[in-house]
């Protein structure tokens, strides 16, 4: 009977179900969508406008001319949307674990790595919708990358979303309780965002602090931002691509390990 559903067809039914649930929740939580949109728009409309005159940008790849600061910061804000989304889905997983919904997911007969990866993909799909909604509004704000860039951006968003989601997934296995999420904000989201190339080019940072420059270079978020930046201008940053893929693989493996009952961290705790 049910054992013959343990094939790949059944697996994809399971993945479809996980994405479907995420989509319903997303549609029901309009505030979440709005706040995910308002956050980068505030940065774009207010912060970037104020910064425009302060910060001069030289011509650096992938840009072929001088660009306005708003245009520079847009890929960083796309990555920020995905960063918040990745951490938010890790928050929802901690919540799911406390309420027991995570257990429902984990008693699925499919391999745990597959179930967790499906959960990750569902979260990435939601973040991509948010990014495109943001870019649509930015277009009216005169941020207009080449039209083809919107297409080449998609694979970059999938990869960077996977990386940030995998980091979130790993954190969700390590966070003991929901209240610790404020700590994630302070110790993960903000440092990752500010110590990266999202808001200012790295050569600018090098001028003021070599140490900070090194930190930014070690921050995987920098590479997500650069991957998105180049893709939006129909180019590939190979270093960024390599780092993003590598970091995704590492954190996904760590998360799957952590959720594996025979090895992981989850099984070592009571309750």
């Amino acid at each position, binding site marked *: 009977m049910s054992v013959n*559903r343990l094939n790949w067809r059944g697996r994809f039914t399971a993945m479809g179900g996980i994405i479907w649930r995420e989509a319903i929740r997303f549609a029901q939580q309009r505030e979440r969508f709005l706040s995910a949109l308002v956050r980068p728009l505030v940065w774009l409309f207010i912060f970037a406008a104020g910064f425009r005159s302060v910060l001069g940008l030289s011509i650096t790849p992938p840009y072929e001319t001088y660009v306005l600061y708003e245009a520079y910061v847009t890929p960083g804000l796309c990555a920020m949307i995905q960063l918040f989304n990745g951490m938010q889905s890790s928050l929802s997983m901690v919540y799911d674990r406390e309420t027991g919904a995570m257990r429902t997911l984990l008693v699925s007969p499919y391999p745990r790595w597959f179930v967790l990866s499906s959960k990750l993909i569902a979260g990435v799909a939601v973040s991509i919708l948010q990014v495109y909604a943001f870019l649509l509004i930015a277009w009216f704000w005169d941020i207009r990358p080449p039209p083809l860039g919107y297409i080449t951006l998609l694979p970059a968003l999938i990869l960077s979303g996977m990386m940030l989601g995998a980091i979130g997934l790993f954190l969700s296995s390590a966070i003991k309780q929901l209240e610790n999420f404020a700590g994630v904000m302070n110790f993960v989201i903000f440092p990752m965002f500010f110590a990266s190339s999202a808001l200012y080019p790295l050569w600018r940072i090098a001028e003021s602090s070599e140490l900070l420059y090194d930190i930014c270079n070690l921050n995987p978020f920098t590479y997500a931002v650069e991957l998105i930046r180049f893709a939006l201008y129909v180019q590939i940053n190979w270093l960024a691509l390599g780092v993003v893929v590598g970091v995704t693989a590492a954190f996904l493996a760590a998360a799957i390990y952590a959720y594996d009952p025979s090895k992981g961290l989850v099984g070592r705790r009571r309750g």
Partner: protein
Amino acid sequence: MSGPTLSVTGVSHNFGATKALDDVSLTVEQGAFVALLGINGAGKSTLFSLITRLYDNVSGSIEVCGHDVRRDAGPALAQMGVVFQSRSLDMSLTIRQNLRYHAALHGIGKREARERGDKVLESVGLLEKAESKVATLSGGQLRRAEIARALMHGPKLLLLDEATVGLDVRSRRDVVDTVRNLADTGEVGVLWATHLFDEVRGSDPLVLLHKGAVIESGIAAGIAGDVTLSERFLSLTGVERDEIAA
């Protein structure tokens, strides 16, 4: 099918230096309603976490319909329906949406999920509530909805961990009756974990769990002998009367 639906043999489990389970063995035959009785902290939830593979059983073996949960986790989990102690339905979805989600997690597509959903909801008396949001259900309805969900993929083994906690007397009786009727159909074996002595009938196979160890197992009436089950439990364990419920 040959062999028991659930077979737990010599299972021990530690949390650090604390021994949560010590050499536990029990079996659930097809169509049986087996009561796992123990006061809070006896190790019931730990045992459930091991059977459902939330934790790994490092010693002993657990088999579901002949599938070892460690070596053969997929087929073992496919035969298992679980109602956890903590409530685990998605409150923002309707009952039917919850069932569809659960069905998908077991590889069952949308159309089949709807057919099965109607059937299992009818068996727990909730068909007319199918389109209701879970958040609008009463405690007893919520539990029965969780039982319906656990049955969606046609499991051979139904595990319920303190399924009546927090319910009023009538809802409790409804939930227990629902599960007993399921076992009576002969299609599922039930492991019913509880700390409430009055939920156990004299004819039930019973496993008494105390401080992580099985202190008695057999038919409930036989274990009780000529006193009540709770009195027998007190004399076996030496715990105070006010520590037990019912």
